[in-house]
């Protein structure tokens, strides 16, 4: 196991080094994603404790987090300047799409929550 632990240490080090070079706007997105995922995990744990009774509430809670995270990742892919695949997509357009999707997501969540 020490080898694996050493690997992991090395891994984290090089990762954080590489990550430091990321532009700020992507970092903001990452923060947002981390927040959403963390909220989702907390909810799943909570569900494990109290049981899944208001199942629709649980689903909407968790899905709103996952949805948020996934959409943010999509945005991150699209606005990443290093990404060659989305060269012809303007970041403004990407952000507008993102907002639209989020609006739909949250409206549906509101409907599903109660």
């Amino acid at each position, binding site marked *: 196991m020490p080898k694996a632990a050493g690997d992991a240490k090395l891994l984290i080090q090089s990762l954080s080094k590489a990550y430091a070079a990321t532009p*700020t*706007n992507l970092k*903001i*997105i990452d923060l*947002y994603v981390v*927040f*959403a995922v963390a*909220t*989702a995990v*907390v*909810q799943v744990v*909570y569900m494990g404790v*109290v*049981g899944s*009774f*208001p199942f629709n*509430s*649980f689903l*909407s*809670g*968790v899905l*709103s*987090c996952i949805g*948020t995270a996934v959409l*943010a990742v999509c945005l991150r892919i699209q606005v990443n300047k290093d990404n060659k695949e989305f060269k012809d997509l303007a970041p403004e357009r990407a*952000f507008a799409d993102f*907002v639209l999707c*989020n609006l739909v997501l*949250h409206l549906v*969540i*509101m409907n599903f*929550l*109660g």
Partner: protein
Amino acid sequence: MAAPRLPVLFLLLALLVVACRGEASGEGPRGRKVLVLVDDLAVRSSHSAFFGSLQARGLDLEFRLADDPKLSLHRYGQYLYDGLVLFAPSTPRFGGSVDQNAVLEFIDAGHDMILAADSSASDLIRGIATECGVDFDEDPEAMVIDHINYASTEVEGDHTLIAGDDLIESDVILGSKKIDAPVLFRGIGHAANPSNSLVLKVLSASPSAYSANPKTKLASPPSLTGSAISLVSVMQARNNARVLISGSLDLFSNRFLKSSVKKAGSKLSHEKAGNEQFVTETSKWVFHERGHLKAVNVKHHKIGETNEPSMYRINDDLEYSVEIYEWSGTSWKPYVADDVQVQFYMMSPYVLKNMSTDKKGVYSSSFKVPDVYGVFQFKVEYQKLGYTGLSLAKQIPVRPYRHNEYERFITSAYPYYAASFSTMGAFFIFSIAYLYHK
């Protein structure tokens, strides 16, 4: 002042109409016109005491010969009579338009009948009796013989005059006053059809009786013996038509009504046979002067409301009530009993409850609708010996919760609400931060 007075007047008028209606419903359950068919007009005088008691109670008797060619039970689709007394045991066929089927249809239309046969009973009479669930002894010569429980006024000694005292225990059929004296009977015996659950033996023969031809020696064992022999039976059809069948026409005769009786081997001698009381009480029952129940004002509603809904929701609390009255012969009296039950029924009873009564005729019960949706029925199935059957069924659908009737804002779900709203908030913050970062 004139303006408000007018509605008051209308109200009074309406009340009057309602009151009149109420009085109309104060009439008995049956009309009073009875056709008496005899095969010999002498019966009219030989049985005058019985007819007299009927007339004294307000029955309107019309005497006709059974083979009267103008005989008809109905005209223009309406029945002319409300009851029938068939004292024509030997008639081979009726006159006019009446035949066996006409008589049965008369019963199936909800009318009552007293049928008396004797040893000369024709196939027609036997046929009617069979259709009413009673089989007379097939041997045309046979009579009921009882060598132990015969009436000792009889001297000749073929022991066919029976002093019967095995009466049904029912105050409704026989009246509340006990019949002490034995009932004299001379005639043929019958047996109730075992597949027919509607026939009741009112006067049964004793275990020592048998049915055979008294004039010849007993060649083979008699087909009807013991208390399986019924002397007088009643049948209440599903539509509450009542039929009394007696194997003896003499049972109703003046001679038997007036005669004194002493049972063989018994020291007790009665001044008067029980016949008079017996025929009076049973004829009261047959002509619905007793034991007729009616249920009115079936109501159900949610507790706390008065209007009857067209549909219930699962887990609603509801109240069901019905008024039950009994005809006393002169007026409708509240019926009092503690065994009336209501069912909330869908393929099987989901709720089965005794209803409580306020002794004024109102029966009510309240219960919770089960947690099952479907088309339910409120059912009151009240079948009590001697009484007319009450069979009320009222269909009512029960629906599940509507989407907005479920519990909302459940405490255990608050973290989820919080999470959803926090992501929403985060979205706004993120958008602003993202747009203005630089």
